[in-house]
């Protein structure tokens, strides 16, 4: 039957591929991304892994899944062909005015992103829809026709339409689309009422503009991949990983590229979700720390937390508020500007500071010997004995330990500390800042962060995870196998899924069920069509209904999932009760005598879980205690044993402190922690 499946994850630096057999065997390959033409790296990776496994394309009869950074690249590089924006007349500056906010009031030099669509390609259409959905002014046909002429004359390939209050009634936007289709056949059209039918004109316009802007790049890209796969012999349609943590057919993805922005990180979070389910954990925190940033995501009940809005292309110091808002379900990613390349310095208070500047990978840390002179987190890790200068990246890259020590000592002179104190300070501070960011995010989202086990991966994640766990009052860290290609692996174990949302403001006390049911029914049908297209049998789908709810008068909502019979029974008392339970859990208060209202309905459709997604345990070999080395930890130093990960036996138990090395990373087990290897090849570190 279905034997082989394959996933390709194109990230900013690397293109990863995983080929898996249903018996659990897998093959991986990792190559540099080819930014000039991503498809080149895509097919290169596929032929490399097929070669390793000695498998032909025709034999890949299960899914072929793709996670990609193509949309983000198009936005950051601003190289897409020109797109246009049509808005209600009188409101042409919706993108330029933004929300009028300065995200950091203390920063006189703040910058905000340029709109993706410029004012000279933004057109006002005479029309008006009221907040209650009534059409106060019909679309002025002539003004749309005049715009259509200009679009054709300017060679515009793609157009976004975002009219006021269209989230409530899409009629005028649809009429505009009809006229454009007549006058500019073949033009790509993104309607805000299709893409992001939610209240708040700026984020909706921004999301729609982003979709229109990237469509002319993404559509041919996906068609080229699909076409190329056919040519080399693949029979399966390509599935695309989307930001919300599901996969969707590539032709559906081509019409809504805005759903693909966080494709790669979503796949990583899905891998974490897979392990959460596999290991029977109600809650898990994925923790991925690389060279310039760390990313974390909470997994609850086997599913990554999803957010309804996020930002892309944060142009000013990665700051919240300096990017383009996107109103689209996305796994709730905590992005932290801390990584192995974060630079340590002395600040104006004559105290040690880590970041926000990063040496990145070029020049990189001092120990890379590529010209970096400022000590970084990686230099500190090396000076503490956590990294082995001879065995970094499997020994392919020798590290300059003396250089790192000297740089740390220089900084120490200013601070009155020796180089080891500085290194330990850096180790602690970077851990503290990551833990603080995770706590702040969790508190804002009403997630209880205390004691959640961590799943650590990325080049620097396993070096710092135990310490971050201690700061989050957690006593478990899990180190999965295949950590270096975890996103590609995540894409393989992801069921098909689509999330849809429609705004409809109603008070629970005055629920209009016929309108609510119409929304739920329409979304369920749309989701079913999309999932069947992605290869699901209609009978296998699970449709869940959720609602964004709040106390009347509030403006921030909580998403409340409803048991399916609740909607059938139309039980508003129970709905209110469920909302209040979640509200109390999140914020510790319950407010009496206040109406509860629904702001939006959501439908989530999930395909079946993958069967046989077993991972073949790592090869069993005899335990080799290679060597020992002196490692300095917070709270002491000792001569600790160093193991090679591939040499660890299943169920083997070891007491920390110790070091476990693998090719792409090093696992640091702090004093007070013990480890055990499980059946899945995961290493579990347990405190105490």
């Amino acid at each position, binding site marked *: 039957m279905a034997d082989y499946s394959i996933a390709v994850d194109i990230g900013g630096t690397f293109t990863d591929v995983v080929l898996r057999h249903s018996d659990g065997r897998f093959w991986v390959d990792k190559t540099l991304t080819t930014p000039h033409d991503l498809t080149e790296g895509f097919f290169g990776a596929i032929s490399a892994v097929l070669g390793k496994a000695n498998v032909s394309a025709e034999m890949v009869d299960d899914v072929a899944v793709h996670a990609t950074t193509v949309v983000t690249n198009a936005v950051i590089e601003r190289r897409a062909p020109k797109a246009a924006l049509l808005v209600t007349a009188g409101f042409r500056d919706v993108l330029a*005015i*933004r929300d009028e906010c*300065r995200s950091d*009031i203390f920063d006189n030099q703040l910058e905000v992103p340029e709109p993706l669509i410029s004012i000279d390609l933004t057109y006002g259409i005479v029309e008006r829809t009221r907040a209650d959905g009534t059409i106060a002014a019909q679309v002025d046909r002539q003004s749309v026709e005049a715009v259509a002429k200009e679009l054709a004359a300017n060679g515009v390939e793609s157009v976004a339409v975002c009219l006021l209050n269209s989230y409530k009634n899409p009629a005028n936007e649809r009429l505009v689309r009809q006229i454009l289709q007549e006058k500019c056949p073949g033009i790509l059209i993104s309607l805000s009422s299709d893409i992001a039918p939610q209240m708040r004109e700026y984020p909706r316009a921004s999301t729609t503009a982003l979709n229109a802007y990237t469509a002319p790049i993404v559509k041919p890209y996906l068609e080229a991949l699909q076409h190329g796969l056919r040519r080399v012999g693949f029979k399966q349609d390509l599935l695309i990983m989307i930001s919300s943590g599901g996969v969707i057919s590539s032709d559906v993805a081509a019409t809504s590229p805005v759903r693909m922005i966080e494709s790669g990180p979503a796949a990583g979070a899905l891998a974490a979700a897979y392990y959460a389910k596999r290991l029977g954990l109600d809650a898990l925190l994925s923790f991925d720390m690389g060279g310039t940033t760390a990313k974390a995501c909470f997994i609850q009940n086997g599913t990554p937390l999803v957010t309804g809005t996020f930002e892309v292309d944060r142009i000013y110091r990665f700051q919240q508020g300096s990017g383009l808002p996107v109103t689209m379900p996305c796994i709730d990613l905590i992005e932290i500007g801390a990584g192995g390349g974060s630079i340590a310095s002395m600040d104006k*208070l004559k*105290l040690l500071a880590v970041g926000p500047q990063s040496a990145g990978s070029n020049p990189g840390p001092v120990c890379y010997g590529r010209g970096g002179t400022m000590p970084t987190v990686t230099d500190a890790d090396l000076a503490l004995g956590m990294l082995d200068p001879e065995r970094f990246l499997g020994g392919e890259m020798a590290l300059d330990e003396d250089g790192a020590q000297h740089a740390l000592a220089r900084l120490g002179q200013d601070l009155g500390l020796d180089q080891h104190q500085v290194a330990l300070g850096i180790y602690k*501070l970077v851990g*503290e800042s990551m833990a603080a960011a995770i*706590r702040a995010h969790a508190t804002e989202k009403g997630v209880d962060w205390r004691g959640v086990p961590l799943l650590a991966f990325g080049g620097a994640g396993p070096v710092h995870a135990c310490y971050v766990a201690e700061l989050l009052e957690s006593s478990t860290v899990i180190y999965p196998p295949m950590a270096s290609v975890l996103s590609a692996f995540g894409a393989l174990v992801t069921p098909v899924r689509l999330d849809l949302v429609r705004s409809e403001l109603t008070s629970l006390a005055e629920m209009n069920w016929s309108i609510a049911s119409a929304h739920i029914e329409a979304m369920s049908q749309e989701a079913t069509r999309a999932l069947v297209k992605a290869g699901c049998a209609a009978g296998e789908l699970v449709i869940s209904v959720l609602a964004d709810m709040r106390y009347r*008068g509030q403006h921030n909502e909580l998403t409340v999932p409803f048991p399916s019979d609740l909607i059938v029974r139309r039980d508003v008392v129970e709905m209110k009760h469920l909302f209040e339970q979640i509200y109390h859990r999140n914020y510790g208060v319950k407010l009496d005598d206040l109406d509860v209202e629904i702001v939006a309905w959501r439908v989530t459709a999930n395909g079946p879980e993958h069967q046989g997604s077993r991972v073949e345990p790592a090869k069993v070999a005899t335990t080799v205690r290679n060597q020992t080395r002196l490692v300095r930890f917070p709270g002491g130093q000792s001569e600790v044993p160093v193991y090679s990960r591939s040499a660890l036996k299943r169920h083997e138990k070891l007491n920390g402190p110790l070091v476990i090395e693998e090719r792409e990373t090093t696992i640091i087990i702090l004093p007070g922690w013990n480890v055990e290897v499980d059946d899945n090849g995961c290493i579990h570190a347990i405190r105490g």
Partner: protein
Amino acid sequence: MDSVLIRVLWNNLVSIANEQARALRRTTFSPVVREAGDLAVAVLDRRGRLIANAVTGAPGHINTMRTAGVAFTEAFPADTLRPGDHLITNDPWLASSHFFDITIFSPIFYQGNVVGFIGSCIHHTDVGGYGMGAGARDIHEEGLWIPPLKLYDGDVPDKALHAIIKRNTREPEHVIGDIAAQVSCGRIGSERIVSLMERYGLSDLQRLSDVIIARSEEATRERIRQLPAGTYHGETRFDIPGSDEIILRAAVTIDNVKGEIISDFTESSDASPLGINVCLNYTIAYNAFTMHCCLTPEIPNNNGSMEPFKVIAPEGSILNARYPSPVSARHVVGMHVPMPLMKALYQVTPETVLAESAGGLWSVQIFGRDQSERPFASSMFNFSGGMGARANKNGLSATCYPAGISAVPMEVLEAEMPIVFDRKELIRGTGGDGQYRGGDGQVVEFHLETDKSWMLNAIVSRTAHHSDGLGGAEAGAPGKFEINGKTVTDPRKFVMAPEDRVLLVTPGGGGFGQSK
């Protein structure tokens, strides 16, 4: 305490304040808090000294925590407090300079002793009285005045005080709900401080607080010592409908021996009969904010970093209003405080300042009854003019400086009230020309879909005076406020006819440097 531990603990205090500010913003009803971030959360030591604060949208709120700390610890010395106590005030002269801002302090108890406070301040929806606007004739017409009191006494809410507050606001559920959110913020913030102390084995916060304040003060003075000594002058002139021209003059004296800067506002206008007067604590807050942004942005904000920035403003001046001057719309004047200061600092550190910005937010409030006779009352909603240009960057368009407040989306307003917007667009060229351009202002037109009369409260500024450019650049264009095409010259509330139309054009920001 070694220097790494100091840094670790310090960062933790700031992150606890940030966490609680985010949670508070999500749980409040007050639209200017949830949509616009008009709030502050701070950690103070047991003597009421500000040691860490969340980085949020309202410098006036943050920096007046410092004076609130003094007021609360004088009224309730730490040793007289019990676990479960929460303190409250909205006294303009003690806290944040108008009744809308309610400040709550929750003592943090550890091993039976008060080790510090979590303070929060938010702009509430309504506190009775005149409402948001400049039209009250004295402070008492502006609503409910809460002196420093115990809101909770040992976990028991003061029923009388809650009942009085509830009866004195037009939005009782929202105000009581938001006060509960502030109390919850104090509780959870305190728990977080206690677990931090347990993790690092601290028995109190005093040594940490001393170090934070001393280091911040010293670093600030060190920076000032690098500046050229002297007295530098700056002046801004602006107008508010119905008021005389307002002049703020600052003589900024840099003492580079002591490392101190004295801002003397003596030559500024006298207090106004309108509710636009500023209490001294708010002037001090905006003075410290301006100096911090221009001179020491990398030094965290706390009592120590504010200490070297002194303010002189004679009693009875518009920047040091006396009882019973009305103060409700004090932000209109307060947000102009940075302008004369930055003109003075332009002579010292031109690369860090801005040309004049549009100044105060243009804020609007409407109320009345909708078609089905249901009463509606908007909270304040804002529109920004252009920001002044920088030495090497344009000013941002339709973006306020110095506050960082967001606009409430039009679709949100239209969904909640019978308001209909007819236009909201930038007016290009209203920002001053120069080597770098000032941000442009915007035009906003709206009317109501109603057959009943309604009320309009609008606070605008700079409709006659432009925002000056710096270094030979052009000024930004002044704004406009019209009802049915006629310029408004009255600051008070208007009773509007159903068909009336409102037009607002916010001012542009000044340019920077001569254009080539």
